[in-house]
């Protein structure tokens, strides 16, 4: 807006009318409370049970074995993630800014040992203990080769159970199946959450592992929750979601972000810019003229305009 006008700055000296602010607040409270209470009673709220590692390993054992093998081979999302979990990659960039790298490894996660080898210590199967010892005494190159060969064999066969196991995979099949059994009987869920404290509040380990697999990803896709499905706004079932994130979600659907490998950081920066524009909207040229150009205000203040022949 241009220069401030006295009428806007001064205390209103024109005609007034009685207005009971507290009564308005109380009526609003009663009406809004009843409305919300009714919505809650009629529509309820979603409570779709969380997925466990046990459920994953029982429903999609081959995917579980393939993901476990991927953790050993260092090829999964979290194994190749970078900060804040590990130094496997630099992470995303924002132009010259390597914010992800600079923020450092603050939540150390080593998937092959944290998701696979450490929990396998709890296996009572002597073959697993032997396989674990074989793995740990091998060179890194040998470990990677075993795991990558087994991963390739699973992919070729289409199902981990159809792979003919031989010596080329080293101890990997025994390790992967050992973890599968731990997961299927339900102990892995506990093992991955209780490494820090037996009274857990942090689900970083099991969630990263779960999200590395195809099973969890597929569940999200069928529920229309993927980023490229505008999933950020969506909710499970037929409930409304976080529709207020529409701009965030929208940016993931368009170029240049959609195909950018730095989409996450670029969209975040774009949003910060838009947020700045939102906060300083009254100072933005043209935008701050819009209320005059599109006169909704004549409807809002139609009584005043009528009474004053404006």
């Amino acid at each position, binding site marked *: *807006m241009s220069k*401030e006008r*006295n*009428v*806007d*700055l*001064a*205390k*209103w*000296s024109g005609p*007034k*009318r009685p*207005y009971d*602010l507290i009564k*308005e*607040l109380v009526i*609003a409270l009663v009406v*809004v409370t009843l409305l*919300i209470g009714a*919505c*809650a009673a009629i529509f*309820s*709220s979603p*409570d*779709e*049970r*969380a*997925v466990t590692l046990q459920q994953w390993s029982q429903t999609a054992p081959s995917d579980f074995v393939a993901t476990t093998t991927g953790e050993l081979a260092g090829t999964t999302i979290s194994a190749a993630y970078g*900060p*804040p979990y590990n130094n496997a990659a630099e*992470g*995303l960039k924002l132009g010259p800014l390597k*914010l992800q790298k600079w*923020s450092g490894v*603050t*939540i150390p996660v080593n998937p092959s040992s944290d998701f696979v080898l450490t929990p396998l210590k709890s296996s009572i199967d002597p073959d697993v203990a032997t396989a674990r010892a074989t793995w740990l005494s091998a060179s890194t190159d040998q470990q990677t080769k075993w795991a990558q060969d087994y991963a390739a064999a699973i992919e070729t066969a289409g199902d981990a159970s159809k792979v003919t196991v031989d010596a080329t995979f080293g101890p990997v099949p025994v390790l992967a199946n050992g973890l599968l059994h731990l997961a299927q009987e339900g102990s892995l869920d506990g093992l991955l959450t209780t490494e820090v404290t037996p009274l857990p*509040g942090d*689900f970083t380990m099991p969630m990263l592992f*779960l999200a590395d697999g195809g099973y969890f990803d597929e*569940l999200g896709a069928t*529920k229309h929750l993927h980023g490229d499905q505008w999933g950020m706004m969506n909710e499970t079932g037929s*409930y*409304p979601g976080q*529709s*207020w994130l529409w701009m965030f979600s929208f940016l993931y659907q368009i170029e240049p972000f959609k195909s950018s490998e730095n989409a*996450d*950081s670029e969209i*975040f920066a774009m949003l910060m810019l838009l947020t700045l524009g939102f*906060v300083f*909207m009254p100072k933005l040229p043209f935008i*701050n003229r*819009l*209320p*005059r150009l*599109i006169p909704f*205000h004549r409807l*809002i*203040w139609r*009584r005043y305009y009528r009474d*004053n022949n404006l």
Partner: protein
Amino acid sequence: MTTMWTTKVRRATIEKIDPQDALPDNQPSYVASWIYVFGVATLAALVVIIASGFVLTSKGATWWHTSSVGHYWNSVHLWAVELFFVFMVVHLWGKFWMAAWRGRRFQTWVTGTFCFLGSLATAFTGYLIQGDFDSQWIATQAKDGLNSVGIGSFFNTLNSGQALLLHVALLPFVVGIIVVWHIILVRKNGVVPPLDAKEIAGGGK
């Protein structure tokens, strides 16, 4: 001039408040539109959010999965949030089209936008602590965005304990302060006059 800190603070705060401004029993005659109701409707929804949040907080994070009463309060909390945002956006649109930032009311606009942004963050952490599939999904998806700009190094969406504390303590506290600040500014500055209100001589409040 006094050198007493207490006197200075009193003069800068309580003595600045005109009771007629703080709780007026009249308004300029142009305040006659349903659009003015949406600010107070947003506030009412916030009260329901906080009240239902108190109930859920007092019984703990997993109560609502096992109790039908708990599930009802969870539903109240959800629908209060949905309607809170609906009312707030109507309020925001109304204020935009009235160019309500005129007459040194820019700060009121800014605190309003901060209310909106703070509410986004608070709602987000709420979604993380439901303890259902939705929480798992949102946590694993959102971590990448936050990690990509370094925020993930101090806010881990997969750490439910952290999200829980942010949601029930830190963020409501911050949002609460901004909301109170916003309301104080609204009362202090009064309702903005119509865009074409007749100009008057003089100035200042």
